């Protein structure tokens, strides 16, 4: 197993004295989908900005590809080329006047040739479905379009790992599906994906690894099945159960379903379980 990112006992305090991280230790496996769960103020966004060296831990270390991050320009450049961050609010990220220029910002900073920049920008805009908006000023885009333009700007740098801070917040159902599919596609191309969310259903059916944070600490990590069947952990983190598990537990409790070896991972699996089990005769 190759860990692309590791945090080892990371502590971080903001200037105003808020201790945002209190000994975070975690490992992110290359090529996997990792979901970070945690309530407001748990420290997710703060942790993400440690991943690309924007924040520097007061104690502890962050490792990229097994190598400790060095906070000097040459290393940070190399790090930020490989770790892309999509911010929660696309307005903080989009700063140029139009989409095309904004997407070109990252690749130009990498010092690529104009031709290469151009192909990357076009490819990234196509992939995120904002090609037709390329000349539009960023302040005239809808929220979902801004979000996708912001993702295009990160994709165009071809990072190995992309961190998404609450990518599905504030989206309508169609926009939600679009973004989830986009992130899924990005992962299929072999990129490691880390995202934070409050959406337990997404975390349950989609993640390879779930990490639960609370008050600047990691209070649990494991596969979605492990995490969401741990009732003590869920209540400690004030998380609700995914609807799928809730329904499954209820069905088992009522005797409508035999407890299977593993709970269903998605809607399709639940339906299959239901199909295999004959309903009890009255």
């Amino acid at each position: 197993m190759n860990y692309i990112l590791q945090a080892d006992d990371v502590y971080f305090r903001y200037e105003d004295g808020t201790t945002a991280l209190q000994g975070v230790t975690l490992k992110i496996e290359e090529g996997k989908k990792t979901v970070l769960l945690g309530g407001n103020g748990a420290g997710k966004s703060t942790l993400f900005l440690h991943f690309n060296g924007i924040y520097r831990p007061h104690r502890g270390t962050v490792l990229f590809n097994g190598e400790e991050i060095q906070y000097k320009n040459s290393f940070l450049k190399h790090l930020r080329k490989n770790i892309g961050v999509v911010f929660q609010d696309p307005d903080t990220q989009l700063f140029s006047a139009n989409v095309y220029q904004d997407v070109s910002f990252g690749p130009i900073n990498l010092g690529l040739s104009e031709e290469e920049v151009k192909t990357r920008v076009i490819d990234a805009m196509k992939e995120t479905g904002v090609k037709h908006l390329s000349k539009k000023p960023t302040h005239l885009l809808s929220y979902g379009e801004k979000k996708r333009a912001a993702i295009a700007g990160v994709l165009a740098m071809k990072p190995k790992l992309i961190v998404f801070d609450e990518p599905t917040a504030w989206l309508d159902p169609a926009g939600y599906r679009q973004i989830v599919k986009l992130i899924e596609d990005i992962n299929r191309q072999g990129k490691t994906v880390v995202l934070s969310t409050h959406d337990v259903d997404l975390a349950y059916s989609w993640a390879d690894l779930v990490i639960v944070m609370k008050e600047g600490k990691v209070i649990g990590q494991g596969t979605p099945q492990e995490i969401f069947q741990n009732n003590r952990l869920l209540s400690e983190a004030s998380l609700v159960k995914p609807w799928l598990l809730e329904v499954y537990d209820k069905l088992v409790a009522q005797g409508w379903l035999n407890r299977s070896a593993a709970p269903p991972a998605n809607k399709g699996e639940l339906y299959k379980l239901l199909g295999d089990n004959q309903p009890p005769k009255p």
Partner: protein
Amino acid sequence: MFRIDQFAYNNSLSAVNPVEKIAFAVITLAIGIAFDTVLVPLTVFLLMSVSTIFLARVSAVFYLRLLSLPFTFLLVSMAAVIFNISLTPFNYLFGGAWGPVYIGISAESLRQAVQLLFKALGAVSCLYFLALTTPMTEIINTLRKLKVPVLFLELMILIYRFIFLLLDTAGKIHLSQSSRWGYASIKTSYRSMAVLIANLFSRAYWRSQSSYQALLSRGYSGDMKFLGVKYSWSYRNLMLILIIEAALLSLGLCGRANI
């Protein structure tokens, strides 16, 4: 503000090389204010308005509304120029003595005021033509080619972007205040406005912090560069601009010879 920008990105002259549009507007502007006549600025005003409405196809109603914006300022400054106040009697058309002071309108001051009006209108129409046909990004790109210092360009980019962010934030705060009766009376209006302004600045500050972090995340290292769109030159347009400017210039020179 939003409408101006929408037209800038979407008008019938969008495909025209921005350098041509900028040259047209700036040279016309210079000629319009160089001559002390009424005829030249008036011609400039008509030329620019016709170009904006008929060539660029900007909505005429919107254009007139925009023109009405500077009118108040213009009227005030005209009033200041028109009325002469003096301790000694002078040659006035209207007016008279008011105690030891003489107040009145002289032929000279009237001429100056009318000139001022037309010069200002001519200049405003040139700037509106530019603002309504050429996106800010293209203007900045052109300035970059003219070797304007990078610091200015980056400031322009950021200011342009943040004007809209500030407007947006202010709009949201205002909405949330007014939906809670924040502007129900004069007194609450003053208080709400004060809170809005104070909040706007602290939010702008936090926002600029996270924007800077986002810039760093994408490899910003002190130089803001983007890819510009390539435009081709149109010799027809260049000739047209040349002819129009030459005509304006000779109009100004002839007019001066006559007076």
